[in-house]
């Protein structure tokens, strides 16, 4: 599977010592972004030394609902809100911790994201631009907090739409959980989406599709197939995400900085309703393949401009 092939094994100095003549071919040791927990992901994207956390674990703002169902809480409810700077400009990052309850959105974790974006919106309305970044790593709503989670996802979406008029809202999907459910809609509302090859973006996860539509529809264990359909590479190739980066902290950081440099897009994806309806109308469900979908959603004429962005 493609993501396994991306694991870098090398210690360049060791390779050099063993084969000095092979120095040029020695793969570079990468600083994996996927392997970082949420707090370190946020730290990696902010300017060095500028990380400052809001409502951190010692504030003990936990889910009131999980203990009632016999589930242990995490002190930050699996959501890290960090202030700092990106390229010297004020920034706020909301990062989801995928290891805690699948990065799911509960009342508290979702409210933290919505509030952080709403605060950035208020700052922008007062003329103080704050760069918002959301690190999506989430299965969507936390089923144990169903309606409250859904309600707060709507607040997050509303905040993104309001905020993106002032400043680009940049989303990152790194993997390995991916981004699903209501939060996939939130990701789709972002001005720019940065993804890795390991990322997945979709409404329903493969297991849900298999369970609901049958294994003839999709075999969730067929990882190649799953990534062909909803993987980061496919989403960029079909113009539903903007930039494909390696699993490398520096690459993700560079992509986020570049997105802010581009400024607010002339028309967000979700504002191009007619364009996407036309593309959808050209999809024949009986014959569509991942390759033909790319041609419909990202016609060759658009490739050049899309490549510019990436």
């Amino acid at each position, binding site marked *: 599977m493609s993501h396994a092939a991306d694991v870098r094994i090398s210690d360049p100095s060791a390779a050099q010592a063993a084969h000095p003549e092979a120095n040029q071919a020695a793969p570079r040791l990468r600083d994996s972004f996927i392997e970082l927990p949420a707090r370190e992901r946020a730290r990696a994207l902010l300017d060095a030394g500028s990380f400052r956390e809001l409502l951190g674990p*010692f504030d003990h703002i936990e889910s009131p609902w999980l203990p009632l169902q016999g589930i*242990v809480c995490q*002190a930050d409810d699996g959501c890290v809100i960090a202030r700092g700077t990106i390229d010297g400009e004020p920034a706020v990052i909301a990062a989801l911790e995928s290891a805690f309850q699948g990065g799911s959105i509960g009342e508290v974790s979702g409210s933290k994201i919505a509030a952080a974006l709403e605060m950035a919106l208020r700052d922008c309305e007062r003329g103080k631009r704050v760069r918002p970044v959301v690190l999506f790593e989430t299965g969507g709503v936390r089923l144990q907090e169903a309606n409250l989670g859904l309600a707060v996802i709507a607040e997050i979406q509303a905040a993104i739409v309001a905020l993106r008029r002032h400043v680009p809202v940049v989303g990152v999907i790194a993997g390995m959980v991916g981004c699903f459910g209501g939060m996939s809609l939130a990701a789709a509302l972002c001005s720019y989406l940065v993804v890795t090859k390991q990322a997945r973006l979709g409404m329903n996860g493969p297991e849900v599709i298999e369970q609901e539509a049958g294994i003839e529809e999709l075999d969730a264990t067929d990882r190649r197939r799953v990534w062909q359909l909803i993987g980061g590479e496919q989403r960029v190739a079909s113009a539903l995400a903007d930039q494909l980066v390696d699993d490398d902290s520096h690459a993700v950081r560079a992509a986020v900085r570049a997105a802010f440099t581009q400024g607010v897009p002339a028309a967000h994806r979700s504002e191009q309703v007619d364009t996407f309806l036309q593309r959808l109308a050209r999809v024949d469900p009986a014959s569509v393949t991942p390759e033909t979908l790319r041609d419909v959603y990202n016609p060759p004429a658009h490739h050049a401009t899309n490549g510019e962005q990436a």
Partner: protein
Amino acid sequence: MEHLTFDYPARRAVTTRAHVGVVGSGDLEVLLSPASTSDTSNSDNALSAHVVVRTSVDGYGHIWKSVLDRFFTRYDGAAQIEINDFGATPGVVALRLAEAVEAAGEGDAA
């Protein structure tokens, strides 16, 4: 889910705090901070450490006591230690506790 508390004698005050780990499968989160000073206001001014464990796995209180007994043979700080556990093994618990002590030693004033 089970809720366990432990107290241990301490010999020095703790002035920093640290947070390590994640409440994920086979892992745990440790929050280490200075113990509240109200406990030391009595006449003999005894310092003590307090541990609160919330664990997803029931029935292992004696194992938690063994792991913490061992930890406190080497650690003498008057700390408030909160543990949110999602099925970590005793070895992982011991490593996370050591990591929290190390992280608290690096600063981050409470």
